[in-house]
């Protein structure tokens, strides 16, 4: 049988070569589908990997507590509002509770505000203010470029700012020591961090565009209200972390009178934090899948034409001893070859597209073996799925009827 397989491949090759244009167009349909699927998967993979790299960079012993917005109906209705929790269930008092749960924990709350920052020269720009604790430096792996991270005990209101924001505010000048004001509060830039180029991370913050201030200062800006987006916890070891998380959970449940938060640790932290992101990824994969289905229909169409054109050939083959099974395999292999060629082209196209998009976006796409296998696997699936009907039609043909056909 294996020898026959080789013959089928040869026959398919000849048939595909004979109708070059037709083959090329059909293949293109599949290639586009596979290319879009692989591009999206590779970009999503790139994002996930960059997040997990950040988690690894802080030792891997990270846990994140987030308000449980899953229960909110508004979340499903409007995915765009996900990051801005209307009212967070996490409170300022939780921080103390968590810090006391175990020794050696580093706890960094994250509270974000979108505001306008203005300098003395009346340059103003919109930026994100993150109110946090000094522990953020360790929990989020943000290397400093110049100056220092915010300190709790400082006579001024300190701010550590991202590279891009520094450029926006002060241009080429050294930002250290410069001031800017938000509403009526004046901040002094005490440090800048290195450019991170990772807008997607488990904190959900693009640090390049961010001002980091103390939580107490952020609270003042927000009219005395603390709105915590999440609380990062880093322990010395993963055992310590697990032990601490147990206590933290029970104490938080007690303090809140129920579970209105989520504790995420381990691998899950590395999963893209933004629900919007996952949602978009899913939608895009769905669209890519549709284009793949369209490609599959193209294969089916062309295979049906091919079967119709070759009715006589089928009759002849049957009359000299081909069984229905053999004919089925022959045509199935032809459609599989179409889709596989499309799959390989699609993968190449996908790589090009992903790197092209990656250079425009901030993250580099990552191609894992799984994506390649998934791309080719999908191609095979489409080829087999949409090739089955035409092949079955070919196999069912009655030899006598087929031989009677002209052409």
């Amino acid at each position, binding site marked *: 049988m294996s*020898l026959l397989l080789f013959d089928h491949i040869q026959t398919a090759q000849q048939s595909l070569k004979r109708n070059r244009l037709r083959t090329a167009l059909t293949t293109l349909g599949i290639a586009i589908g596979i290319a879009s699927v692989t591009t999206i998967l590779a970009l999503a993979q790139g994002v996930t990997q960059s997040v997990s790299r950040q988690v690894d960079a802080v030792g891997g012993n990270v846990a994140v507590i987030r308000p449980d917005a899953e229960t909110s109906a508004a979340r499903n209705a409007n995915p765009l509002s996900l990051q801005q929790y209307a009212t967070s269930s996490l409170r300022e008092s939780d921080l103390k509770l968590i810090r006391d749960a175990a020794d050696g924990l580093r706890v960094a709350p994250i509270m974000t505000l979108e505001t306008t920052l203005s300098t003395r020269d009346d340059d103003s720009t919109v930026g994100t203010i993150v109110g946090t604790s000094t522990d953020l430096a360790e929990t989020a792996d943000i290397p400093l470029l110049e100056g220092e991270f915010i300190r709790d005990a400082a006579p001024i209101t300190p701010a550590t700012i991202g590279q891009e924001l520094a450029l926006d505010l002060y241009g080429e000048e050294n930002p250290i020591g410069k001031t800017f004001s938000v509403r009526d509060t004046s901040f002094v830039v005490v440090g800048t961090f290195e450019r991170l180029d990772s807008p997607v991370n488990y904190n959900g913050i693009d640090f390049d565009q961010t001002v980091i201030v103390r939580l107490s200062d952020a609270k003042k800006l927000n009219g005395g209200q603390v709105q915590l987006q999440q609380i990062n916890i880093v322990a010395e070891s993963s055992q310590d972390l697990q032990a601490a998380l147990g206590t933290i959970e029970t104490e938080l449940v007690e303090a809140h009178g129920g579970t209105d938060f989520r504790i995420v640790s381990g691998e899950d932290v590395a999963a893209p934090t933004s629900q919007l992101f996952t949602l978009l990824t899913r939608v895009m994969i769905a669209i890519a899948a549709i284009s793949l289905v369209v490609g599959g229909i193209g294969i089916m169409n062309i295979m049906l034409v091919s079967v119709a054109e070759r009715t006589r050939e089928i009759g002849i083959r049957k009359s000299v001893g081909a069984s*229905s099974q053999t004919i089925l395999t022959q045509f199935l292999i032809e459609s599989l070859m179409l889709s596989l060629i499309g799959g390989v082209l699609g993968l190449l196209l996908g790589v090009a597209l992903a790197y092209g998009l990656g250079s425009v976006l901030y993250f580099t796409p990552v191609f894992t073996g799984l994506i390649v296998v998934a791309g080719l696997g999908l191609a095979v699936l489409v080829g087999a799925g949409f090739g089955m009907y035409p092949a079955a039609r070919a196999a069912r043909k009655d*030899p006598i009827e087929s031989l009677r056909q002209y052409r």
Partner: protein
Amino acid sequence: MPGAKQPVIRLKDVVKKYGLGDAEHNALNKVNLRVDAGEFIAVMGPSGCGKTTLLNMLGLLDRADDGEYFLDGKEVEDLSDARRAHIRSRQIGIVFQNFNLIEKMTVIENVALPLTYHGMNRVKRLEAASRVLGSFHLNEREYYLPHQLSGGQIQRVAIARALVNQPSLILADEPTGNLDSRSSHIIMEELAELHRRGNTIIMVTHNPNLTSYASRVINMLDGQIASDKKIRVTAKSRTETIQLRTVKPTTSDKANKKAPAKKSSAKKSTTKKARKKPTRKKAAPARAEADA
């Protein structure tokens, strides 16, 4: 001879129906037939008498509605399609009126096609095909496409294809129906030669002249065998046979005169016969080229 050996074919009360309701009729109506190895049977009869249906049945291309069919002693009527295809690829060679070569494949690939379904590898397949084509003096046409050959040549390729799997039974459905008289005789010579080499051949034909090559003539009428005559034909007594056949009113004089003349020349060797013809018949360049 009959009875001693196992028959190649035995049909028992074979019925094949076509049409539905009022239009239903039996294309084959309880046909009984026994064919021994080495016979050359010509099946005659008017259009619609069931000749082709019979041939399709014998070639396992069609199934009977009722009755039994033993091929080489084995019942084949109730076998699965896959088994029947397997038998077709090993025991049966079919020659069609309209040749039925695959247009897009070269001559040698066409001839090698049945061997594909034996699972034979490509090289061996092409070697075998080349050998068979050699015996038809078509070696120089191996890599031609069918449309580049003359009708007679195409049919010889088709016969080569039917032979390549060394079948126990060769079926020919009006093998000369699409050919001019000269090509027809070349083809009939080839079939006669196969018969001399011991092959069993069943040929359906309209042309009564062609029955002169057969060892047995079956006349069919309305789905039944109307007459079944054995003719003592061997290579040496062929001329006799032809004369015997002249008694029949159906044969034209012209054909009879032509046939014996050809036979005597053909007897010596196929090559010689082939060479001789163009000189006699005036210009058959394709054929001459093939033989050269």
